[in-house]
C-alpha cells in the first residue's frame, strides 16, 4: 500500500484515540469554586475577549489575578482571543464577562475539546509526519510505524485531551523547529522555536540546545565569513519575532515587567505538590524546603541545573549534528525538569517530545522513558477521573511500540550503545548487558502496573495519606535520573569525528 494511505490511516487512528479520550472528564470538572485548568482556559478566553490588551496581565477590578490569572506568554493570550471569537459566534454565554465563571455544559465541553483537536491537527500532527518521513531512518514501513507510535504517546493525549491543555501547540511548534533545522533552514527553524517559546515559557527547557546547535553551526561555517552572516540573520529573526509577539506590550516598560513577573513566579517556592524531581524526592529525607531560605533554594537549583546541562551543551556546540541535537534536547529538558525551580509534573512532556524522536533509533530506552513519564502523572490522572484512558492508552502504547519497532530485537549491547557501561563494569565481564536491560525493563513495567493498581484499589494508611503519590513520584524520579545518565553517556561518548559513516546508520 502506498505511503500516503498508510500514514492517513495512522493519523485517523491517532485522532480517533484522541477524541475518544476527550469524551472523559477534564481537570476540575464539577469542582467549584476554583475548578481546574479547563476553567482557566475558558477564563482566559473571557478575559482576552472582554478586556483591553493592557489589562490582560494586571490585577484590576475586572480582572482578578488570583482567579486563574494569565501566566503564559502573549501567544497563548492571542490564541485564547481567537477561540473566544469563535465561542462568541456559537454561544455568547460562554465568554460573558464575570457571568460565565465556572460555566460547564455539554456544548461548551464539545467546543473546548474541538479547539484542542483543531490545534493538534494543524500544528503537531503534520510536524510528526514530516519528521518521520524526512528526518528518521529506515524503510517506509518503519517510518509509518514511527508516526503511529509517536502519535500514540499517552502522556500528551491524556494531558491535552483529558486534563485539558494546549501542549500540542507549543510542542508542535518546537517540533517544527527541529524538523526545519534538520532540513537545513536555520532561520525558519529559529523562527518556529521563538514562536513556541512565546506560547509557553517552559519551552526555555529546550532553548539551550537550539542556541548551542545554531551557534555551533555558525562556528563550523567560520565566524569570519558565512558563519557571522548566519549568526546575524538568526539574531535579527529572533529579535523581530519577539518584538512582533510582544508588540502590544512594547509601548510601556511596566507592561513588559508585569508580564515577565507573571511568567516567572519566583516567590512560589522550590516545588508544589508531588513532582518526580530531585527536590521533591530529596524533601522526603531532608526537609530542604524549610531548612533553606527561598533565595538559597533558587541559587542552589540554578547551579545544579547549569552543571547538569553543561556537558551536553558543550558537546553539541562542538558537534552540531541532528543526532547530537536530538540527544541534547532530551538531556537539557530532562535536567531542567529534575533540578529546576517550581517544576510541575506536566513539564515531563518537555523531555518526552525529543525522546519520541528517539523511538526509531533507541526503541527500548525511549519506550521505557515514555511509559515512566506517563506513569509519573498517575496521581494527576486519578484526580481528573482518567483511570480507564490511562490504562488503555498505556497498554496500547507499550504493545504497539514494542511490536512495531521490534524493541526487543534491538536490544544488544551494541544497539543500545552500552559500551561505556561495559567499560565501567569491567569487573563483571560475563554479563550480557542487553539481557540485563531487558529484564530491568520487565521488572520496571511490572512495578509500575503494581503501583498503579495499589493507588486505585488500596486506601493509604492514616499516618501517610500521601503514600501512593509519593511512591509514584520517587519511583519515577529514579527512572528519570537513570535515563538522564544514560542519554548523557550516549551523547558524550559519541566520537567528535564520525570514523565510519555507516556506524551511525546501523540502528
Amino acid at each position, binding site marked *: *500500500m502506498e505511503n500516503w494511505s498508510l500514514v492517513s490511516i495512522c493519523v485517523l487512528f491517532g485522532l480517533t484515540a484522541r*477524541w475518544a479520550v476527550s469524551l472523559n472528564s477534564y481537570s476540575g470538572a464539577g469542582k467549584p469554586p476554583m475548578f481546574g485548568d479547563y476553567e482557566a482556559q475558558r477564563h482566559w478566553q473571557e478575559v482576552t475577549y472582554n478586556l483591553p490588551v493592557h489589562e490582560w496581565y494586571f490585577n484590576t477590578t475586572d480582572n482578578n489575578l488570583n482567579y486563574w490569572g494569565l501566566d503564559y506568554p502573549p501567544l497563548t493570550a492571542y490564541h485564547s482571543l481567537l477561540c473566544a471569537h469563535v465561542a462568541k459566534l456559537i454561544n455568547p454565554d460562554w465568554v460573558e464577562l464575570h457571568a460565565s465563571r465556572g460555566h460547564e455544559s*455539554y*456544548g461548551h465541553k*464539545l467546543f473546548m475539546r474541538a479547539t484542542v483537536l483543531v490545534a493538534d491537527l494543524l500544528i503537531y500532527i503534520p510536524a510528526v509526519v514530516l519528521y518521520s518521513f524526512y528526518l528518521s531512518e529506515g524503510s517506509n*514501513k518503519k517510518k509509518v510505524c514511527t508516526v503511529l507510535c509517536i502519535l500514540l504517546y499517552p502522556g500528551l493525549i491524556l494531558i491535552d485531551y483529558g486534563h485539558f491543555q494546549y501542549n500540542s501547540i507549543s510542542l508542535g511548534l518546537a517540533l517544527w523547529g527541529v524538523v526545519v533545522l534538520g532540513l537545513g533552514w536555520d532561520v525558519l527553524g529559529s523562527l518556529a522555536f521563538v514562536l513556541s517559546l512565546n506560547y509557553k515559557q517552559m519551552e526555555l527547557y529546550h532553548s539551550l540546545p537550539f542556541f548551542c546547535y545554531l551557534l555551533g553551526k555558525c562556528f563550523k561555517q567560520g565566524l569570519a565569513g558565512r558563519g557571522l552572516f548566519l549568526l546575524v540573520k538568526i539574531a535579527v529573526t529572533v529579535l523581530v519575532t519577539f518584538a512582533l509577539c510582544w508588540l502590544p506590550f512594547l509601548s510601556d516598560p511596566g507592561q513588559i515587567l508585569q508580564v515577565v513577573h507573571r511568567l516567572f513566579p519566583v516567590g512560589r517556592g522550590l516545588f508544589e505538590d508531588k513532582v518526580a524531581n530531585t527536590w521533591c524526592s530529596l524533601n522526603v529525607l531532608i526537609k530542604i524546603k524549610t531548612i533553606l531560605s527561598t533565595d538559597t533554594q533558587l541559587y542552589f537549583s540554578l547551579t545544579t541545573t547549569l552543571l547538569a546541562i553543561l556537558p551536553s551543551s558543550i558537546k553539541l556546540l562542538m558537534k552540531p549534528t541532528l543526532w547530537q541535537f536530538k540527544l541534547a534536547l532530551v538531556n537539557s529538558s530532562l535536567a531542567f525538569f529534575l533540578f529546576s525551580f517550581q517544576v510541575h509534573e506536566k513539564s515531563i512532556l518537555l523531555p518526552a517530545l525529543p525522546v519520541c524522536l528517539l523511538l526509531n533509533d533507541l526503541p527500548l530506552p525511549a519506550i521505557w522513558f515514555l511509559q515512566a513519564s506517563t506513569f509519573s502523572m498517575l496521581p494527576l490522572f486519578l484526580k481528573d477521573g482518567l483511570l*480507564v484512558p490511562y490504562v488503555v492508552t498505556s497498554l496500547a502504547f507499550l*504493545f504497539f511500540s514494542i511490536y512495531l519497532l521490534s524493541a526487543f530485537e534491538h536490544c544488544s549491547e551494541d544497539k543500545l550503545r552500552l559500551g561505556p557501561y561495559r567499560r565501567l563494569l569491567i569487573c563483571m565481564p560475563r554479563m550480557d548487558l542487553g539481557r540485563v536491560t531487558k529484564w530491568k525493563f520487565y521488572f520496571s513495567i511490572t512495578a509500575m502496573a503494581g503501583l498503579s493498581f495499589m493507588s486505585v484499589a488500596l486506601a493509604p494508611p492514616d499516618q501517610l495519606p500521601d503514600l501512593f503519590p509519593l511512591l509514584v513520584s520517587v519511583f519515577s524520579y529514579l527512572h528519570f535520573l537513570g535515563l538522564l545518565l544514560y542519554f548523557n553517556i550516549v551523547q558524550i561518548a559519541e566520537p567528535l569525528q564520525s570514523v565510519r559513516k555507516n556506524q551511525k546508520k546501523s540502528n
Partner: protein
Amino acid sequence: SVMATPRADDWSWFPALALGVSFLKCILINAYHSTDFEVHRNWLAITHSLPVSKWYHENTSEWTLDYPPLFAWFEYSLSHVAQHFDKEMLVVQNLIYTSPATILFQRLSVIVTDIVFIYAVKECCRSVREEKGSKDLLGHPFFILAALLLWNFGLLIVDHIHFQYNGFLFGILLLSVARHLQGRHLEGALLFTVLLNLKHIYLYIAPAYGIFLLRSYCFTKDNTDGSVRWSSFSPVRLVALGSIVISVGALSFGPFIAMPAVLSIWCRPRGARGFLRCLVVCALGSFMFGWHVHEKAILMAILPFSILAVESREDAGIFLMLTTTGHYSLFPLLFTAAELPIKVLLMLLFTLYSFTSLKKLFRGSLLNPLETTYLLGLVAVEILCEVVYPLSPWQHTLPFVPLLVTSVYCSLGVSYSFIRLYVSLLRQHGTDKHKQL
C-alpha cells in the same frame, strides 16, 4: 522484522490486529450508549434474580426478553460475573441503572465475548485461497480479510458504542461458514443451530443452510456435470442433519425472494463458496424485503461477503459499494454531537483502508465513474444532514427530513448491490448450464 514476507506459519500479525482493535474498543467505554444498554442490563437482572419460569413473563421494564432461550442462558452466565462488579445492576427494579461499574462490566463483556469473533476470523482467513508468489504482508488476501473483518466499522459502532452483542453472534456465524469452507459440515450445521437459538433473526439465512446441507451433504456424489445423482442419497446423513437442524422452513418474506438463489445451489452447488454467495444474497434479500428489519441487519450481509471480496475482482467492486453505503446508513444510530467525530473518523479509516487494500490486491480501479460519483455523494448527504439542515429553519417543522434523505439515498446503493449480486449468482448458474450443452 514484522513487515518482512512472513513464513506460512507466521501469524504474529494476527494477534496484533486483534489486540489493536480491542484497545480501540476499550477507549470507547465511556462513549454514548443507547437504550440497548438498559435492555441488556434488564435481561441480566431478570435471568439472575428470577426463576426460569418467570423469565419470559417479567415486564417491570418495557424491554422484555425477546431473544431465544439460549441467549437468556448466555445473559444468566454473564450475570454471575456481573455480581462482582456491582450487585445493584441485577435488581430488576433498578431501571436505567448506570453506575460506572455497570458501564465498565457491560462494555467489557462485549469486548471479551468478541473473542469468539476473533477466533472465527482466524478460521476464515485460513480458508482463504492463498496466492502464490512472495508478497509483502499487507498485500496478502488473508491479511486484508482479517483487517476488513476485525476492524469492520459497522460492528465497531453498533457493538461498542450503540451497544449490542453482535460480535459474539457473528463470530458463531462466521465460524459456521468457515467450517463449511473447510468441509466440516456437521460442525457448521451445529454452530448454525446454536446461532438460531441465540437470535432468531438468523432464520433469514436458514434456507441457504438447509438446501445446501441437504444437497451437498446428504447426496454424497454428483454427476460429472454437477447435477444431482439421486442414487447417492444417504439416509444416515439426512438423519444426522435432521437431528441437528431444527427448522428450514421460512417464517418471513425474505426467503421467498431468495428462492431462485436457493434453487441454484440445489441444481449446481459449486461447493461451499456457492453456499456463501447464496447466504449473502439471502441475508441481503431479507434486509431488502423483510418484516420489521433493523438497519443493523445490513451487517449480516456485509460480514460474510468480506470473504468473497478478497477472492474475486467483481465481488470486491460490489463489496465496496455495499459496504460504504451500508455503513453510512448506520450513521443515524449515533446521533449525539460528541460521537460525531468518532463515527466520521472510523468511517474514513475503514473506507480508506478497504478501497486502497482491495485496489492494490486486484491491481486497478474496481468501480466505474458512476459508482464513484454516487459514493462521493455520500459526503454531500452527510454535510447536508448534519451541518446544513440543522441550521436551517425547517429543522423544527420537518425534523425527519435528514433521516429520510439518508435512508432513500442509501437504499439506492444497497438495492444496486443486491441486484448485481443476484445477477452474478444467476450468471454463474447460467454458465454451468451453458457448459453442459
